[in-house]
């Protein structure tokens, strides 16, 4: 009898395979979209195959989320330490500001500095996804009960040992939840990259908007939505596997 956990991963694996098969099968899309929009002359965006578009999109999200995680988690940790506590208000202000700023505006500001293409898009996505990661890291560390830290230091752990052996494991789920939110936001926001030529699933959508072609829009939006669901499930599974009792979750 497979455990609930294995079953979840199995379902996710099946969904992933189904997703790849679906986006690789251009013929199927063509037939489907033609059936829905018999009036359009072209229903598939000609720039690149759907597989390539999805791949570009994943790259955009992976790179920007990667940077967000690599910088965001240490930033959250640092402002939770005595040495960085003074910067806590500034950091939370800046990250919330980063999120209230419309991504298109970030692009507009970034293009003169970073040029067109990948770089400004990644910069915008990074800024945009930073808040949930930093905020959850701070919240997760803050929620570690003080008596556990007392026990940790009392037993002779150094600050670094207490961080890695006690604080981070205990806040891992909360931090990962922040990562999940950030990645999902980025999958949606990465659409705007197409405006300045970063490619991805935004391309057919922009083209569809420009040419008033609903088929193109669906070609971009549907895989993006599926991608978001898959990413959400993937990260949720990781979160659940961090639950620290062997009771059924």
């Amino acid at each position, binding site marked *: 009898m497979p455990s609930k956990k294995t079953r979840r991963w199995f379902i996710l694996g099946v969904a992933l395979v189904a997703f790849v098969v679906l986006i690789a099968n251009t013929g199927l899309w063509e037939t489907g979209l033609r059936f829905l929009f018999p009036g359009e002359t072209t229903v598939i965006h000609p720039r690149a195959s759907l597989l390539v578009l999805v791949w570009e999109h994943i790259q955009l999200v992976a790179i920007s989320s990667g940077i967000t995680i690599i910088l965001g988690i240490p930033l959250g940790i640092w402002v939770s330490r005595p040495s960085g506590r003074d910067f806590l208000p500034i950091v939370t202000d800046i990250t919330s500001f980063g999120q209230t700023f419309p991504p298109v505006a970030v692009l507009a500001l970034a293009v003169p500095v970073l040029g067109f293409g990948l770089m400004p898009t990644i910069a915008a996505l990074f800024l945009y996804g930073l808040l949930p990661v930093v905020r959850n890291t701070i919240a997760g560390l803050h929620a570690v009960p003080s008596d556990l830290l*007392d*026990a940790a230091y*009392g037993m*002779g*752990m150094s600050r670094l040992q207490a961080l890695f052996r006690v604080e981070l494991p205990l806040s891992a789920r909360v931090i990962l939840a922040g990562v999940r939110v950030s990645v999902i936001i980025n999958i949606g926001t990465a659409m705007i990259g197409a405006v300045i030529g970063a490619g991805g699933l935004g391309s057919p959508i922009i083209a569809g908007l420009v040419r008033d072609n609903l088929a193109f829009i669906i070609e971009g939006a549907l895989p993006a939505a599926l991608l978001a669901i898959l990413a959400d499930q993937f990260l949720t599974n990781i979160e659940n596997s961090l639950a620290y009792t062997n*009771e059924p979750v």
Partner: protein
Amino acid sequence: MIRLEQVTKRYGETTAVNQLSLEIGKGEVCVLIGPSGCGKTTTLRMINRLIEPTAGRIFIDGRDTATVDAEKLRLSIGYAIQSVGLFPHMTVFNNIAVVPQLLLWENNRIVRRVGELLELVGLEPADYIRKYPSQLSGGEAQRIGVARALAADPPILLMDEPFGAVDPLTRERLQAQFIHIQKEVNKTIVLVTHDLDEAIRLADRIAIMESGRLVQYDSPEIILSRPGSKFVRDFVGADRALKRLSRISVKDFIKPAAAVNVNQPKKEALASAAGHRWLWVVDDDEQLIGWVDTKTLMQSVSTKEAMDEGDAVKISILESATLREALSRMLELGFKHIPVVDDSQRLIGEVALGDIEAATAEGKG
């Protein structure tokens, strides 16, 4: 072993600990007690430098702790707190293994040690090592907390209300186990409590504190018989004579008891009474099964017929009991003598009410 010299801790205006000097010998159990907020926890945490004193010095084995690296110092001092503080993301095994792992012990040695410790605190290793703290009862968690504090065999143990968070019955059991464990490991222990009975039961010496100051530091017997101030007298309460009894084991008060075998003929039984009005009745295994009134016996056919049956557990006390328990049992049953039995309920002797009174009177001076 541990020496505090004029130790003071101030937090702004408040003085949590005020010029406290205290010396704790090797293998001694020192219990810090006093009203809430009197500075017990602060004192304890200054010993392992979780709190740095504002003034004064603390020596362990003659070395000023301020000159030792704080983390190294703490690795050599066991620490158990009221809330237990087991790490919820670690199994029982990993919780106990924390300090040995920090000390980079070999894995085999850690496994062996964790097994030993679980047995020491009375938990079956195989049943517990894989459990998580959320799967333990309060009492089990406390015991794991003690095992964790003992993990690297530190010579010193600091315990802040270690039995505070459990029900009275479990607490009593844990205290009994504490005494048993301490006999085996013989650590130097500083224990904080606000339960006087616990202090009397566990301490070699009790340090009574009042708003940051040490007001008396003596053995429980002396604290109870000769409180040094009105504060201490009030603190130990009006029933201190009774409390003193809980420090005295019945062992030294056991006298031979008049007893008959249940199958002994009436004549022999009456002969062995030798002036006693009451006789304890035992079976062929020497186990206590009741008592007999010689007056009734004279009018009956046999010992068996005349006997009042009684459950040994209810009508006797164990030889490991205290005089306080003996007295309480006597009052409950209305006896002037109480039989003492061993673990298998075999009659050893009896304790007389008069002797308990005498013991109470002795301490009055």
